[in-house]
């Protein structure tokens, strides 16, 4: 299997040996390269996801979706992006100016920081913490600060209600998302994402962990959808009650930031689910079938990773277009009375099963 370490170490070697730069400049250039690559991936993934969402949503409603701009409407998203970039940013008269313009960046940064710690393929991993899971959980929930700030600074009742809902929702669902991921950490015995992926070489956790992993996977997906404010949990921007919730007052690229962040958060949730439950970039290995395992190894690791992500994203879209929106009391009841007790029992059972 192709190891991306070859590429990264070649670049490192080029800078250090061939160009003769010292440690500081080498690292500086490498940081910038990684940042640019991640930003490009960020924008690209958001574009692809917006197109996929529009198409799959259309298919769920027996429509065709965008098909006029380019073949199968492929350029539609790019046209929309150019449109949103050229729109005017309207400053709201009685808004909290600084926070109003700062809020989208919190949302963007919150999801962008997560990208650095995700193992996209073998060796394609910007930073490998030994507390990777904790870092991802902490950083991916930063975005809610941006959402609450947006709701507060817009000086608009609807925005504020949406932001309050987003806050309540995220604080609640972070618990069961964290507990579900902890279940997998107990199975892997490590919080380092690369170790977690490596330990799934002889079978993904969703197969190895049995019923516990399955329950944790479902709980994580539900909690993840709630954290991204999508699907049946889109109370913060429920368009039928709150016009657009926390981003009602935003226009142009500021709105575009929220739009992009929503889709990249969806990708991040799918990527974390992929890494923790479906084996990350690890190919499908069945112990005992060596020929089959060899064939699976020929498929590049990036294809495995993005394929599994696409599967999780499809699950998210399927759920989104199946269920009506929850009421706020139903939402909190689902978390505190159903998901959290189940995930607590689940993690206790896994701990017992691992020690025995």
């Amino acid at each position, binding site marked *: 299997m192709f190891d991306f370490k070859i590429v990264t170490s070649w670049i490192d070697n080029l800078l250090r040996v061939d160009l003769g730069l010292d440690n500081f400049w080498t690292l500086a250039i490498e940081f910038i390269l990684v940042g640019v690559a991640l930003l490009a991936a960020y924008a690209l993934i958001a574009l692809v996801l917006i197109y996929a969402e529009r198409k799959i949503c259309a298919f*769920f409603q027996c*429509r065709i979706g965008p098909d006029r701009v380019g073949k199968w409407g492929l350029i539609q998203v790019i046209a929309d992006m150019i449109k949103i970039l050229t729109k005017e940013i309207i400053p709201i008269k009685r808004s909290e100016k600084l926070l109003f313009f700062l809020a989208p960046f919190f949302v963007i940064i919150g999801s962008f920081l997560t990208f650095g710690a995700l193992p996209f393929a073998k060796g394609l991993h910007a930073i490998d913490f030994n507390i990777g899971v904790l870092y991802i959980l902490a950083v991916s929930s930063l975005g809610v600060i941006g959402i609450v700030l947006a709701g507060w600074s817009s000086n608009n009742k609807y925005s504020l209600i949406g932001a309050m809902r987003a806050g309540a929702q995220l604080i609640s669902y972070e618990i069961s998302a964290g507990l579900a991921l902890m279940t997998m950490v107990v199975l892997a015995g490590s919080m380092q994402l690369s170790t977690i992926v490596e330990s799934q070489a002889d079978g993904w956790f969703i197969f190895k962990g049995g019923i516990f992993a399955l329950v944790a996977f479902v709980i994580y997906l539900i909690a993840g959808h709630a954290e991204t404010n999508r699907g049946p949990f889109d109370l913060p921007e429920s368009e039928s009650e709150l016009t657009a919730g926390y981003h009602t007052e935003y226009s142009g690229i500021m709105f575009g930031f929220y739009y992009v962040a929503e889709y990249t958060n969806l990708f991040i949730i799918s990527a974390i689910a992929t890494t923790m439950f479906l084996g990350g970039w690890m190919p499908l290995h069945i112990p005992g079938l060596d020929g089959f395992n060899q064939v699976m190894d020929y498929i590049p690791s990036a294809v495995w990773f993005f394929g599994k992500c696409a599967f999780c994203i499809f699950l998210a879209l*399927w759920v989104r277009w199946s269920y009506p929106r929850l009421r706020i009391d139903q939402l909190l009841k689902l978390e505190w009375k159903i998901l959290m007790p189940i995930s607590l029992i689940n993690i206790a059972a896994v701990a017992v099963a691992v020690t025995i």
Partner: protein
Amino acid sequence: MKSLINYFKSLFEGIWNLLLGLKISMTNLLRKKVTEKYPENRKTKKQFERFRAQLTMPHNDKNEHKCIACGICEMNCPNGTIQVISRMEADPETGRNKKVLDKYIYDIGTCIYCNQCVSTCPQDAIAWSQDFEQAVFDRDRLYMQLNNPNSKVIEKPKPAPAPKAAETANN
């Protein structure tokens, strides 16, 4: 204890119902798409039979229609869309005066497609067409004369004496 049983019962019922919902949306996903790619398929596009695009008066190949100019459609029309202009003509056989359709004017600009004219027509002389492309550049073209020029009403065969006998028998 009972509340605990109820809790688990409602939990599993909820999961079952959610799975049912997923199944329904999946069948929708796999169903044939209903979108019409309109300008591309205008050659093959056919509206369904009951589609009310515009009022027409079917003529047979001898340029004859069924309208007897009774004016019931005109009376029933809520918008005054229909104007039946008729003239009196002497029947060459009996010599009696008879109403004959001169012009059947239909203003599609005020038609609300309520179907009252078609459903009350005693002769089934008018019908809806499925030709839905109705945009015109000039408002005058919204006034249409439905009967062809020089068209005639279909002469019904003279009533045979047999039904008359039956009628009297009934009385």
